[in-house]
Every structure is written in structure tokens, then in C-alpha cells.
């Protein structure tokens, strides 16, 4: 079963050193997951200052600067893992470095058969 782990945290809460350390620790975790066959994909995201939002209403497209929702914690990265059940996903989520500063949202991925492999 695949789960997406969405990493939310306050962007301003990180110093440059902490960010670098977080990237190193995250990369190490990904390699460990890969060795156990649980890694699918993962990546940090650029800051929300780089975000662009788009919506189409009544056939009219509008493009705006910034994220979809202004919140105190921003989406800063994601992991996709392949594990047996929610408890295993929780166990991995609790090892993601930003769990100590922000929030990890765990979402099971729905299996859509019509997608390209």
C-alpha cells in the first residue's frame, strides 16, 4: 500500500544550517527505505514564495502568485512510500526530521488502474 507523507512546517522556523542538516538526514532516510524496498519517491519543494496557483472558473483561467492557502505551516516536501499498513507509515513518518518542527500528514494513495505504469 502506498502512502504520501506531506511535510508541513513553518518555513521561517529553519536556519540555513538546520535546513542543510535536514536534507542530509532526509537523504539518509530515503536510502534506508530504498534498501528495504519501501521507497517510491521523495523531494523537498522550493519555498512558497516560488508558488503559483491556477484556477479555471467559467472557462476563464486565472493565475496568481502564492500558495493555494495562506497558513502558518507550508507544504515543504513529500515522500511516497510503499509499506504494509498505517502503523508502518506512522513509524516512518515519525523519523522524518521536520516532524520535530512541523506536521507530517499521512495520506493513503488511491490505486487508479487506468494510469500509465
Amino acid at each position, binding site marked *: *500500500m502506498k502512502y504520501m507523507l506531506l511535510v508541513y512546517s513553518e518555513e521561517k522556523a529553519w536556519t540555513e544550517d538546520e535546513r542543510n542538516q535536514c536534507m542530509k538526514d532526509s537523504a539518509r532516510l530515503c536510502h534506508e527505505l530504498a534498501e528495504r524496498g519501501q521507497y517510491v519517491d521523495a523531494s523537498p519543494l522550493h519555498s512558497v514564495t516560488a508558488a503559483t496557483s491556477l484556477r479555471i472558473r467559467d472557462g476563464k483561467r486565472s493565475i496568481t502568485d502564492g500558495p493555494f492557502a495562506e497558513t502558518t505551516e507550508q507544504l515543504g516536501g513529500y515522500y511516497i512510500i510503499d509499506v*504494509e*499498513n*498505517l*502503523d508502518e507509515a*506512522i513509524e516512518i513518518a515519525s523519523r522524518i526530521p521536520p516532524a520535530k518542527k512541523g506536521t507530517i500528514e*499521512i495520506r*493513503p494513495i488511491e490505486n487508479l488502474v487506468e494510469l500509465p505504469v
Partner: protein
Amino acid sequence: MSTTAHSGDIKDLVDDLYRREGRRIFATLVRLVGDFELAEEAMQEAFSAALESWQKDGVPKNPRAWLVSTGRFKAIDSIRRRIRFDKKVAVMAQELEASYESFEENIEGYDDETFNDDLLRLVFTCCHPALASDARVALTLREICGLTTEEIASAFLTSAGTIAQRIVSAKAKIRDTRIPYIVPSKDDLPERLDSVLAVIYLVFNEGYSASSGAEAVRVDLSSKAIHLGRMLNEILKDPEVSGLLALMLLHESRREARVDSAGDLILLEDQDRSLWKRELIEEGSALVEAVYAGGEIGVYSIQAAISAVHARAKTAADTEWGSIVALYDLLLRAQPSSVVALNRAVAISMRDGPESGLDLIEELLSSGELSEYHLSHAARADMLRRLGKREEAAAAYKEALTLARQEPERRFLERRLKEMSE
């Protein structure tokens, strides 16, 4: 197999098995068939099949195993009927049938441990922290206690539709996010057990603080919670499980003494102690002593110990306030919270006099944390009343009244306020 089956006897036997073992058999079927609804339906069908078959053929050597085995067959039957409509179900049926031989070899070896283990899986799944708190409560009462949706709704003074919706979404979450049907590993156990104990205590308190009016038609939630506590204490050796059971038993022992015929609250110090249930006090106190002898003492056990000190005082004046203050010191370290600090201040005032209690409460109130909590103002009012400062006490009772919500509490505060102006 015994062949002399009297139909009335068989019915009693099946009823008795249903009461004692129904939820255990259900828990095992959930593991075997992997689905709550299917397991419930299969369990009900197995019991009705037993009624028929045991009258004809006699009672099997291992009735519980017979019921599980029959329930499993009923589940496979039911899946076969559904295959026509749903492809996913066909996979389920194949898996179940593929495990047929190994299952039949094992079933006679199912002992208490197997059934208890399955019951624990059910408990930990229903109380999984990924489920919303009210969903955990509803699911626990429905799946572990076997209450109907209507009974749960009336116990929580809400509609059956609301409860049904909660249970449906909780089961959907269990299925869609794949909450595993397992007993948590040793590392996760404390965290997961906290969630289970919180559900049980919440159910207990809901029953214990219920207003007396509607009580007759309401399922007694407190007795359900105590039943859950006893069951868990039997199959899971953990000091906090014993501590929670002790705490509930000690509270329960005072149920009749704590309200008068008009439904008004009676303070611990004014209760008629001859109404306290001795056998519950003894059982609760023995559990507390056993936990203390073991040396691993958590927050439920400390609260139970405080309750046990009150229980052993023959009169309110005999209360060993020194022991109670010491226990609150311990509780404050284990669970630092301003509500615990407030209770500790009250205990200190009982040991050292209202002056010292008042100082502590005013310190707590000035920190701002408890300023919206009616009991902190009520406690302050009480200290002032005991010091003879009637006007200040009246003002504090008024403050408490603006914050109190429950009717019996409001009536109590109004009585006290009136006394201050007499």
C-alpha cells in the same frame, strides 16, 4: 458429542455463550475474514446456526471453535453471494478459501490465548489514535461492548444517525488507510494503551456525570466502562490498566452517596459513608496496593490511590490529608497541569488550613491559566468562606456561577452564595 439435548437447555447455553464469548468470537472472525461488517453478520449467523444444529446433533466438544468455524463458513457463503456484484470481493473469497486447510488444522488448537489476543487486536484497532476521539468511543461501544447504534445514541443524547455516521466513517478509515488488526509492538504499546485507557475513562465519566433525569432509559455507560476495564485487566498485564480499573471502582463505590433525592451534588465531606459500596472499595484498594507493590506507578494509579485514601477514612475528619498531598505532589510531577495543581492546593488547605490554600489558588489564578475554569473560582470562594470573609466569598461564588455549565453544580454554587448573605 452429548446427544441428550433439551431445547430449553440449549437455548440457555447458546445465550450464555453469546453473552460471555460473543465479542471474543467476533474479534477472531474480524481477523480471519478481515472485515467488520462481514464478521458481525457471520457471528450472528453462527449463533443462530448453533441453536438449530446443537439441538439436533448435540453440543460439540469445543463450542467456541465450532462457532468460529461456522462463522467463517457463513462469511465465505456471504462473499460468494456478493461476488456477482463486486470484483474486489472475489479476491477476498479466493484468499479465504485458499487458507481453508491450514485453518481447519488450527481451529481445534484455538485456546484462551488466541481468543484473548484477537480481542486485544479489536481493542487496539477501535482505539487507534488515527481515529477521531468520538469515533473511537462509538466504535468501542459498538464492536467491543456489542451495543446497538440506538443504545449508543441514547447514552450520548444524540441521534442514531450521528452515531451510525461516525461508525461508518471510522470503519472506512480503518479500511482505506489500512489500520492493521494487530496488538502494537512493545515500543508502541505505552502510547497506544494511553489511547485505549482514555476511551474507557471517557465512557466511564460520561456515565458517572450523567444527570439523573434520563438515567432510566440510558445504557449504563459506567458499568460498560468497568466491564471493559475488567476484561482488559484480565488479558493485558499492565499497572495502568489496573490503576484505571481501581479508579473507576472507587468512584463507582460512591455513586449513591454523591447525589441527593433531588439530584443535587453532595460533597465528599458531607456524604453518608454508610452508602459507600464496601466490596467495590475493597476490590479497588486491593488493585491499588498490587500496583504499588509492583513499583511502576502511572497517573491512573496515583489518582486511584488518592481515591483509596478517601475511601478508608471512616469520617471526613479522619481523612489523611498528609498522604493525599504527597500523592498530589507525585501526580503533579507525572502529569504537570494546572487542574492537578488546583486539586493539590485544595488538599493543602485541608491539611494546613484555608490560608495556605488561598495563597496557592491566587497564585494559580494570577498565572491566567485557570481564570475561565469555574472550579478554581469555586475553590477560592470556599477558602474565603472558611476564613469568614463572606463578602469576598460571595463575589467569588458569583464568578464561578458565570462559568459553571452543569445544572447540579450551578444549584450547589447558588446554595453557597445564598448562605453567604444570610
